[in-house]
């Protein structure tokens, strides 16, 4: 074998070896399977790294609720009093933090008034609702409604959520308290009280979340979750019960309307024998469940939705979702070992 032939052969062998990583690389490439969750039109890939921060600098306890403000920033509420509010940009980069006085920080709602952003925070340990500017200046505080006679003490008032009308009126759901829904004027004057603890149609067990549904602009209604009962209840703005939507098996936290759909974090699967059995749930414009990321496919038989339950151990205790303009979702979790929100990218 002359030198030239030998070199040619050895180069071919080397090339063969060197191409191996390419094939193994390609194989690895094929072997990677991004997790896809959800059903039908609403499917997502999962990013667990979004918004992760250094716990020693910006710690979280329970991540209770998460919203997007008018500037497109993602605003998250935690009950850690080092920084109750954590503001991210959409890429998950930390923008700012504030809030040190909300030990029971639970509900977070955006109110846009004359182009300016305000926040309604409910604090079930302070037994109060606090309205702040977007940068944390307190401008109104609502205490327990003593005059209604429905509360023996302030401790019975443990508000979990608010929703705000265009005229500034707002509603409070007392989901961890006596289960009343309170209607206030924009000045904070109590206008109406309805609901209360019980199993009648117009009552609640864990009236955990509330939102204004104006998808039908001519007929705006209130959507209120009865989480313990696995039901979403519809009420008129003056507090009359209209109807219920049952989601058997799903402890739905609060309704979040985005476009024509309603999104929910589901804290737990009702019959689960293990901890961390939560998932997400999406209803279409007809209030039919179309997708349950992390859980069973929604199936209707004779107009009745089969019981839903977690199928993969991805979520622990989802507590709220925020949907951005690209239809991506941000999931805040309760009791998840101090984890930051999870981002879901719609595919």
């Amino acid at each position, binding site marked *: 074998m002359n030198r030239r032939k030998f070199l040619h052969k050895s180069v071919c062998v080397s090339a063969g070896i060197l191409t191996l*990583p390419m094939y193994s690389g390609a194989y690895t490439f094929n072997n*990677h399977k991004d997790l896809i969750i959800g059903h039908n039109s609403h499917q997502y890939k999962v990013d667990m790294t979004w918004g992760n921060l250094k716990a020693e600098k910006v710690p979280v306890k329970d991540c209770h609720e998460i919203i997007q403000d008018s500037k497109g920033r993602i605003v998250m509420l935690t009950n850690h009093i080092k920084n109750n509010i954590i503001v991210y940009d959409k890429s998950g980069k930390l923008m700012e933090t504030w809030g040190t006085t909300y030990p029971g920080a639970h509900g977070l709602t955006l109110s846009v008034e004359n182009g300016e952003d305000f926040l309604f925070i409910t604090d079930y340990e302070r037994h109060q609702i606090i309205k702040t500017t977007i940068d944390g200046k307190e401008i109104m505080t609502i205490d327990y409604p003593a005059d209604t006679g429905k509360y023996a003490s302030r401790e019975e008032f443990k508000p979990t959520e608010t929703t705000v009308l265009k005229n500034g009126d707002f509603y409070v759901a007392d989901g961890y308290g006596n289960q009343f829904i309170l209607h206030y004027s924009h000045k904070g004057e109590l206008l109406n009280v309805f609901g209360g603890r019980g199993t009648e149609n117009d009552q609640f067990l864990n009236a955990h979340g509330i939102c204004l549904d104006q998808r039908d602009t001519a007929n705006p209604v209130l959507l209120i979750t009865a989480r313990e009962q696995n039901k979403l209840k519809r009420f008129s703005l003056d507090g009359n019960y209209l109807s219920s939507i049952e989601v058997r098996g799903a402890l739905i936290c609060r309704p979040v309307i985005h476009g024509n759909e309603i999104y929910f974090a589901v804290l737990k699967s009702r019959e689960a*024998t293990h901890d961390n059995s939560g998932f997400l749930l999406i209803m279409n414009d007809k209030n039919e469940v179309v997708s349950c990321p992390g859980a069973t496919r929604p199936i209707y038989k004779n107009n009745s939705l089969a019981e839903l339950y977690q199928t993969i151990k991805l979520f622990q205790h989802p507590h709220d979702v925020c949907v951005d303009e690209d239809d991506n979702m941000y999931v805040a979790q309760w009791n998840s070992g101090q984890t930051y929100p999870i981002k879901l990218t719609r595919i």
Partner: protein
Amino acid sequence: MRNIWIIVFMICFCSCKKNNEASELTKTYVQAGEIQLTNPRIKVDNVIIDTSSKITASLQLDKAAIYYTKDGSEPTQTSEKYTKAILVSEPGIYTFKAFHPDFRPSEIETVTFYKKGTNVYDISLVTPLNEKYPGQGKNTLINHKKGTSNFRDGQWIGITEPLIAIVDFKNTTFLESVDIGYLVNTSAWIFPIQSISISSSEDGINFIAIEIPQPIEQFNGDITNQGNIHIPISKELKKIKIEISNTTSIPQWHQGSGNAAWLFMDEWIFNTRNN
């Protein structure tokens, strides 16, 4: 020759690029293979078998399959595949596990079936039941019904102090063993049995202590399960006195550290040769 080196360089470059792409993907999105299946959901008519009982298992997820064993061993994909409801007529341990081509297998779910125990003539409580969780009174423990994982289902009695009861069989009975069923749900402060003392009486008046092994159950995180302590007796007796103590001091890892824990029991099964 120069061309060959260029080719070699190109091949190296391409293969590196592919690898980088793959690792970037790994970094961005959660991979299916990292995620574990949820346990199959098990439904059972009654785990105390009189004539027969039925067990169903499900995990409604495309491509998921459930396998099971009947001897207490952990199922693999070579075990029996679950396809339809299983009729159970003999006591035993059924263990289920779900598998999927994309996801990590689930944890196991276990169901223990017991033979129906002998009927008890009377049970008298030396210590009172807790008012908060009295179940259906003292007979809850001898009604041939096991509770579910829900401690509020009426088949459980809950106590925070030792429970002492005397069980009367009326006639002399050869008691082979006793099964004491309990619940663990640590997030609800429900912990396992701490200690058991048993004494038997042949004449219904004088009691003699029986030596039995003490329960040992330790864990360092929240769990929920239904436990059972099987106690061999092998004695002729008319009455048996059972004294059971709850966990008197919750371990340090738990938020209730140092407090007395709840003890929930659903059924005491008295096994004789004839039952």
